[in-house]
């Protein structure tokens, strides 16, 4: 049996520092295999984003365990979590969150430079390759404010791919895009799953996009709806 990409065991996240404790997600048990393309759906405020932050190690569960590639990250140190984030996880947000001062290539190179495994030349070649795969040959040296919304989001996905991560987590990546660009993004996801066996977990509001994933997880009131 292969190790699953993500395994959640009885995960609960409660915000205790509020006046009234708010439970974001409750008793989540879920396994996502490598090479799976999962879409998380559900109404606003149901806990979709909270779940994805927990998987992406940006947040820590109040109760339960989260395993990434078989590693229990709930007991990992801060440094270990940073390392896992850097090597195994790529994030895409609703807003592109590109660094405005840097060109598309430099933005894509950021995670590689942080990881520091490739040579400067290797990083540049890989960044060009990634951007090229996403049809951004003309955008290499453009700053984010010279790119369209769809192009920015593609650069952001290229950046998420920079360190060849095991999992790509996307928090409503198409939330700000028109249908044409949304289709492009989901085409890219499908290709990544098919050709590179990536695991993709994406939140989406659009039922027609969710259907394109090979698994749908519906969250209601912080729980997975069976």
């Amino acid at each position, binding site marked *: 049996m292969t190790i699953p990409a993500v395994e959640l065991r009885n995960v609960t996240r409660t915000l205790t520092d509020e006046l009234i404790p708010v439970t974001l997600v409750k008793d989540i048990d879920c396994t996502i295999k490598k090479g799976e393309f999962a879409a998380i759906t559900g109404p606003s405020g149901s806990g979709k*984003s909270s779940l994805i*932050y927990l998987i*992406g190690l*940006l*947040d820590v569960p109040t109760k339960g365990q989260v395993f990434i590639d078989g590693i229990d990250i709930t007991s990992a140190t*801060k*440094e270990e979590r*940073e*390392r*896992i*984030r*850097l*090597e195994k*996880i790529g*994030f895409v*947000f*609703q*807003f592109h*969150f*590109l*660094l*405005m*001062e*840097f060109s598309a290539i430099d933005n894509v190179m*950021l*995670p590689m*430079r*942080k*990881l520091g495994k490739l040579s400067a030349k290797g990083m540049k070649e890989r960044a060009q390759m990634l951007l090229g795969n996403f049809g951004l040959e003309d955008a290499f040296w453009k700053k984010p404010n010279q790119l369209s919304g769809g192009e920015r989001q593609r650069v952001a996905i290229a*950046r998420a791919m920079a360190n060849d991560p095991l999992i790509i987590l996307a*928090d*409503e990546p198409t*939330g700000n895009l028109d249908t044409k660009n949304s289709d492009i993004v989901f085409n890219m996801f499908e290709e990544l799953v098919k050709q590179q066996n990536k695991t993709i977990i994406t939140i989406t509001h659009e039922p027609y996009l969710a259907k394109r994933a090979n698994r749908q997880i519906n969250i209601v009131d912080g729980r997975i709806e069976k």
Partner: protein
Amino acid sequence: MQLTLSIALEYTRNRKRQALLSVLGVMLGVAFFIAIAGMMRGMHEYFIEKLIDVVPHVKIMDEYRHPLPQPIYETYPDTLIDLRGIKPKEELRGIRGANKIISKLNERDDIRMSPVLQGQVFLRYGGKDIASSLIGIDPKMERRTSNLERDITQGSLDRLLTNSNGIILGERLAKKLSIRLGAKLSVISPAGIIRKMKVVGLFNSGVPEVDSSTSYAMLKKVQILQKKEDVINQMNIRMDNIDNAPQLAKNLEQQYLYRTESWQESFANLFEIFMMENMIMYSTVGAILLVAGFGIFNIISTTVNEKKHDIAILKSIGFSERDISHIFLYQGIIVGIMGTLLGWILGAILVELLAMLDFSFEGDVQAPVEFNEGFPMYRSIWLYVGGGIMAIFSSSISAYLPARKAAALYPVDIIRGAS
């Protein structure tokens, strides 16, 4: 280049105008420090150098630091004694056993000494009576322990030897008396003796107070005038290493009991003034750097607020809190370093401009004629190093506070806030 540093550079480049203002603040702080400290230090050193030039490094005087105890207290140490009606002795003052001390001191190679008898006299010339401190000297010894010979502008020290009735006057004193070289004046001592003496020399020491009140004559002559045969009341010592003066003074006082003063002790109040001046200067410069620090704090706080999304994305990529705080700390350090470099240049220019100022004032020290080339500036690499360290330190501190805040930002909060 380090990744965090390159991000910091980009951020700074993107806020050129604000960064420039902070850089200018730091620059002024550093430049003023170099210039003002250079000026103060230069003046202090010039003062000290001048004063050390004129005064003995150590002097033994014919008095005691503490009055000697009455013999009865020593005879009955544990008894309660009430002494009344004590009167001072009408004795001839002076250093007792002076010859012994002189020959002992002359055995040492590292010091040169000269015995003098100093006393107040009136100089009378052309109907003017002017008080003067007349110092009886042995020219052969005096020329080794003071700069009198160098300071003589008219006549010479050796004329004292050839003319036992010779007297050397400070230039300002001569001016007050309206007397010229070669003229004769009357010297009246407190002992009631009047002698005609001939002016054989004039001197200018650079210290107006000395020049307007001091006169020199042969030791033997002064002893007769003051009715103090074979008495000396002060020994002036000069030494090669002036920093050892306090130690020597202490040793000599322990040995001979007479009050012995080093030049450091004589000028203690002057050093206090210097220290106060230094404190004022450092607080002024500190205030400038503090204001510059506020500027840096402001620019980096603004950047942190503006770059919250960047912080979130960098953290989600796997940047640590340290990396994040480094980005903003580096921004402050970049501003500090640029300000320091510019401050060095401006400081060097200011120093040279100040050095060109005409330097002349009345007071404790008067600039000699040959000192017309400008203000005595202190130039040292250490002022630059010190200014740089202070500037970079203050900019790092100013940057550290917002940088720490940036590092503590919780990415989830930022991302939630954005969507």
